[in-house]
Every structure is written in structure tokens, then in C-alpha cells.
């Protein structure tokens, strides 16, 4: 009796967990489009795009095209810079939301660790809010421009302003992947001056190339 109960319980548990797994799979399956939400109407430019920019449905959300309203994006990039003077590694996760068609607002927190040959390593933290605009060039390729602004913090120089406009290409790959290639200009400034800091330069301007990957749905 006890053994049968145990088997039954195991079976029930297995069925329940199997159902939960099935529900999760159905809910997250790209192919399972249960369009409870009304799909947005398409503009003339959208109608010409074909299927190249369609994103899969996730969790019952309607199928949308990339850069349509309410499309969400989660991704990030990592960086590694090695020069004669310093070595730098960094990571920037990103979360984006298309608030209106073609316009995305993203949050870009960033952590960088810089080690110079003459000084101990230092961490730099920044948080940017970036409005960006995206429009189709051809096929699955979008051109975008974003203007990130926010704050940067370093232990040595304190809190300061960070400005990071960037422009580049986004290529839709696979079902919902977005490969991002961009060129960026980053300006940071802190309130402390070079005189106060001795050798620390409070203003930095850098140009760079950036590659990242994100998932959109």
C-alpha cells in the first residue's frame, strides 16, 4: 500500500512537473503564437519588409517585427583592450524597450576593470540611459543611432558625467537574435580637476568599435 502510494505520488509528481514543463515550453515556444494581444497594424514601410524582420512569439505575445512598438531586447557586450600602457576588460549588459515604433529606450549598466602597469587595478562603473532610433536598411539589416547619457563612477575621481553616442548596424540572425556592430564615442568627466588629482585626468574621450549580441522578442 505504502509502496503503491509512493509510486502514485511519484507518478503524480512526474505528471505535474511534466505539465509544468510542457506549459513552460508552450509559453516560451517561439512557434506557439497565442495572439491574445492584438497585433499592431503595419505601416507602409513595414509591409514591404517581408518576413525577414519578424520576431517569434514568446509567452503568448503576438508576432512582431523588429523595432515595432513593445518589442523587448536583452543582450550585452564584453570588451577587452590591451595596450602598452594598460589592460582593460569590461562588460555591458543591455535591456531595451521599443516605446514607439523605431524608437528604443535602453538601460546600459557597465563595469570596467582597468589595470595600468604603474598603478593597481581600478574599477569603473557607469549607468547610461540611451534613446535610440532604428530603421531598416535592407533585408534583416537595420541602421541605428543612440545617444547614451548618464553617470560614471570611479573611486579615484568620483562621480561624473558620461556621454556615449553610437551608431552602427543591427543584423537579425536566427529566430530572434540581433547582432550589433557599432562605432562609439565615449566622453566622461568628473568634478575633480587635474590639479586636484595630480596625475589623474578627469576628462576622457575615446572612440571605439563595439560588437554585441541581444535577443529580441
Amino acid at each position: 500500500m505504502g509502496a503503491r502510494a509512493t509510486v502514485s505520488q511519484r507518478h503524480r509528481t512526474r505528471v505535474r512537473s511534466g505539465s509544468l514543463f510542457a506549459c513552460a515550453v508552450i509559453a516560451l515556444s517561439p512557434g506557439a503564437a497565442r495572439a491574445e494581444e492584438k497585433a499592431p497594424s503595419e505601416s507602409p514601410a513595414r509591409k514591404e519588409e517581408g518576413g525577414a524582420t519578424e520576431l517569434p512569439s514568446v509567452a503568448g505575445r503576438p508576432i512582431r517585427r523588429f523595432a515595432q512598438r513593445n518589442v523587448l531586447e536583452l543582450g550585452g557586450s564584453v570588451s577587452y583592450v590591451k595596450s602598452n600602457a594598460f589592460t582593460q576588460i569590461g562588460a555591458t549588459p543591455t535591456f531595451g524597450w521599443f516605446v514607439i515604433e523605431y524608437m528604443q529606450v535602453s538601460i546600459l549598466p557597465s563595469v570596467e576593470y582597468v589595470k595600468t602597469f604603474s598603478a593597481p587595478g581600478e574599477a569603473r562603473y557607469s549607468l547610461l540611459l540611451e534613446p535610440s532610433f532604428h530603421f531598416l536598411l535592407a533585408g534583416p539589416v537595420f541602421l541605428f543611432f543612440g545617444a547614451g547619457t548618464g553617470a560614471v563612477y570611479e573611486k579615484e575621481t568620483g562621480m561624473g558625467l558620461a556621454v556615449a553616442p553610437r551608431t552602427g548596424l543591427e543584423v537579425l540572425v536566427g529566430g530572434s537574435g540581433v547582432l550589433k556592430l557599432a562605432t562609439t564615442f565615449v566622453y566622461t568627466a568628473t568634478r575633480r580637476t587635474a590639479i586636484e588629482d595630480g596625475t589623474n585626468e578627469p576628462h576622457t574621450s575615446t572612440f571605439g568599435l563595439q560588437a554585441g549580441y541581444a535577443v529580441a522578442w
Partner: protein
Amino acid sequence: MVKRRPVASHVALVGLARLASLASLACAASLPALTSVGSASAAEHRDMSVTMLGSGWYDLGFVALNGAGFAAGRYLLHPARGDRAPLDGLGHRPRDAALGRAADVAVIVGLATGASLAFAGDLGERTQGADRFRGPVITLEGALAGSVITHLVKNLFGICRPRDWDDVARKCTTRGEGHDDEAAVDEAHRSFPSGHSAPLAGMAGAAVGLWLLPSERHDVNLAVALTSLGFSLTVVALRERGGAHSWVDTGAAFISGGLAGFLTAALHLRVRNVQEPAAATAPTPLMFTMGGAF
């Protein structure tokens, strides 16, 4: 980062500022400023900084003059109503409301971002008092100057917007405007140049001027310039894709707006003697310096 250029380049800048001032739309308002620039030989012993010419009255005059031009171009003047096809020769393109909305938002976000960054940059440079508003005031004046030119020129040619052009009948209609009245007819004929693209180009031009013209360069103005430039080019593309303009319209607005913005920054140049304290710079009756390096 502050970078000081050699004195010789100041002399060239003085000449550039004069040419720029003479060529500007606000030429009349700038004439008192020219008297403050001084001779080239004198400039060799001076430091130059971008700041507001005169007091707030100068700004008020600049804004009033350009505001009047803007209002005249927008509300008083009417465009020629011929059937002139879009200038790029590509004919009709449908109106795309989504792209148009994105362009509207880009203009607002771009102007707000540029002015805010200029202000934040001034704060970071430890400016005092009214000098904290040099950046945002000059960049916004550049945007206004860029906008004025396009709104005046729009009425000269009466070029039809791509969204309103009928390829078959070769006529300029109002089908892309969403309404059919006198205002729609005017709007359909105001394609050249683009009014959305010019303000951001003007802001970018002004920021480039703020970065290049003074003897001390502040890289935050380069950041403002690049940001505004990016927004401006974004709007250029969005307006063309949205059927509102041809590439010729947006390109012309980008160039003219950028030049107007740069000239606006040039109008605010003045020479300060580095050998003496700022207060020793004798103000003329028509130019009250507010002091402080930019």
C-alpha cells in the same frame, strides 16, 4: 579636456569670426559685436573665448529676431503653389505615420539631450553664474537659427512633398496631409528644405563652433556635437523614409542648418586679454561682457 592652441591661430579665428558674422542671418545684430574683436596684432596678446556677446539683451535680441523670422515663415508667408515635383526625381512615396512620429520624437529628444549635455558640460567645467548657461543657450540659438532659414526658404520654391505628389497627373495634391484645407495645401508645398532636420543640424553646428572656435577646447562640446549630429542624420533619414521629404530637401536643411548653427556660435566670439583680469576688459556700450572662460 582643455587644449590651448597657439596664438597665431587666434588671428585666423578672428578673421573667421568676422566673415562668419558678416554672412550670418543675424548680421544686423552682430555688428556691435564686430567692434569688440579688435585688430589682428592686438589678438596676438589676447586670449579668445566663446561667451555671450553683451548681456541677456543680446540673447533676447537674437531670439526675438529669429523668432520673428520663424513666425513669419511659418504663419505669415505662404508658399508658391505650383506643381513642382520632389527634387530627387523619385516621385511619390506614401506617408508613413510611424516614421513621422519617430522623427518628431527624435527632434524633441535630440534638442533636449543636446541642451542638457551642454549644460552638464558647463557645470563640469566649474563655470560660474550665468556662464553655466553659455552652452545650452548658444546651442539652442543655433537650432533656432537653423530652423529660421528653412522656414523662410520653404516659401520661396513651393516644392511638393513626395507623399502629396501625384505621379500620373503630375500635380501636387493634399492626399498625404490627412486633411484637405488651405493649411494642407500650404504644407504640401513646403517640402524644400526640411524643417525637422535643420534645428538639430543647427545645434550640431553650434556645438562644433563651441568646440573649435575658442582658444580653450572643451571636449564635452565635441560630445554634444556628435550627439546632435547623430540625431540630425537620424531625422534626415526618418523624414525621407516617411515620405515627407526628398533627399535633396533633407540634405539642404542639414547643410544650411549646420552652417547657421556654426555662424551662431561664431557670433558669440569675443576676445579677452589674458594679460589682465577679466574685469579689465573694457566693455563697450553695446557689449557688456559677463566674464568667465567658457
